[in-house]
């Protein structure tokens, strides 16, 4: 009986404590800077090295390059860049390998959609997703551990 009474006392005491739930849709949740949300893609920075495509464990990134419009410059520029968020597992490896920080993480995470097709994001969409971009990017991986 004592155990029951103790438990009742405990719950009664917590009755008046401060509530901890977020008022989520009313008050947006502030995610820490490192949060892995949806990628932002900056086409200007991309050098079409295909590293992100290759590292992706689920092969959700598809990209194609085209010859540089300025014939004096070597290399390619990005033509199409898609991420299929149906299978993307937000593992962050693409941003980790990107040498130019063309693909970076943002803090935005609301991906819910009514149709699966909407989860297929193209270059324009990813480029437009340019808010809350993460400031630190993959620099920590360098040996020696210099913090950004």
């Amino acid at each position, binding site marked *: 009986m004592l155990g029951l009474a103790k438990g009742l006392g405990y719950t*009664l005491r917590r009755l008046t404590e401060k*509530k901890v739930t977020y008022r989520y849709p009313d008050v947006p949740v502030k995610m820490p800077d490192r949060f892995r949300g949806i990628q932002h893609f900056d086409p200007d920075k991309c050098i079409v090295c295909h590293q992100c495509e290759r590292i992706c464990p689920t092969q959700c990134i598809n990209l194609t390059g085209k010859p540089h419009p300025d014939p004096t410059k070597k290399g390619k520029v990005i033509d199409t860049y898609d991420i299929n968020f149906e299978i993307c597992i937000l593992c962050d490896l693409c941003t980790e390998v990107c040498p130019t920080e063309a693909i970076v993480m943002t803090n935005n995470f609301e991906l819910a959609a009514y149709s699966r097709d909407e989860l297929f994001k193209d270059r324009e969409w990813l480029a437009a997703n340019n808010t809350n971009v993460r400031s630190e990017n993959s620099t920590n991986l360098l040996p020696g551990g210099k913090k950004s």
Partner: protein
Amino acid sequence: MAHWLSQPLSWTTAAVFLASAVAMLLVVLLFVTYAIYFERKVIGWIQLRRGPNRVGPYGLLQSVADVLKLLVKEDVIPDRADRTLFILAPVIAFVPAFAVLAVLPFTETLHFADLGVGLLYYVAVSGITTLGILLGGWASNNKYALLGGMRSVAQMISYEIPLVISVIGVVLLAGSLNLKEIVAAQSGGFWNWFFLKQILGFAVFVVAALAELNRTPFDLPEAESELVAGYHVEYSGFRFAFFMLAEYVYVFAMSALATVLFLGGWHPPIESLGFVPGLVWFALKFAFCVFFLFWLRATMPRVRVDQLMTFAWKVLLPLALLNLFLTALVKELVA
């Protein structure tokens, strides 16, 4: 009400009765709506949550929205179910729940039928709900429902015995089955309330009443972690709502009964507080009983079914009989 009850039956009195019954129905429906709201709020607060706060100001319309949802929800009757009984079962469960309210007195003047055998009426009529639950569980033709139905019935009948025997102590002290007279016997301060004189009986009553109400920690019939939802697994929409409604109407009835039998009904705890209307006192005690149920729900784990049954027969029943014997003996010695 006493005035109308002593008038010869005419269309006027019948209309008054009908109006009062309808009023009671509305009060009960309002109570159920806000009891569910309040339960969710209290449990939410205890669990450091806010509880419903979306529909209406402070979420006050949450239950209303839930009811409306149930009303427009598709009503599925399983193909292999026993259709007739499936439809009948929630009605059988609900009607007695509402019918027992007819005998509960709220104050000296505010009451409905004033039966000489009020307590027996309550006990007898509330027993019929068990039948509804068993039929509901059986008619669904679902294993979880059957298990849940069997369990609830086994539980409810096992605890009905200690419940009815524990209140005999009160009957002994009051010398009547009439609920008004039982309250009248508790006048003059809280030391005259029966929960003190009948402390053992009160304890047995509380435990048995919890089990009868299928409330935590005795909510096995609908133990969602084992039997998913128990006897009403297959029920949806408004048929489900009536099982639910029956449960909460019993919360109302049982809290009122506990107030009447053990907590002195509308009497103030001290005579000098008599200037506060009786209805307020009744409401306070009643609200405490209801809150206690919610509080328990937020705290307790569920009892296991075998321990539950054993407890009823091996502990509660002997205790209830002992209480009965002691009460009679003390009464004999004192008188």
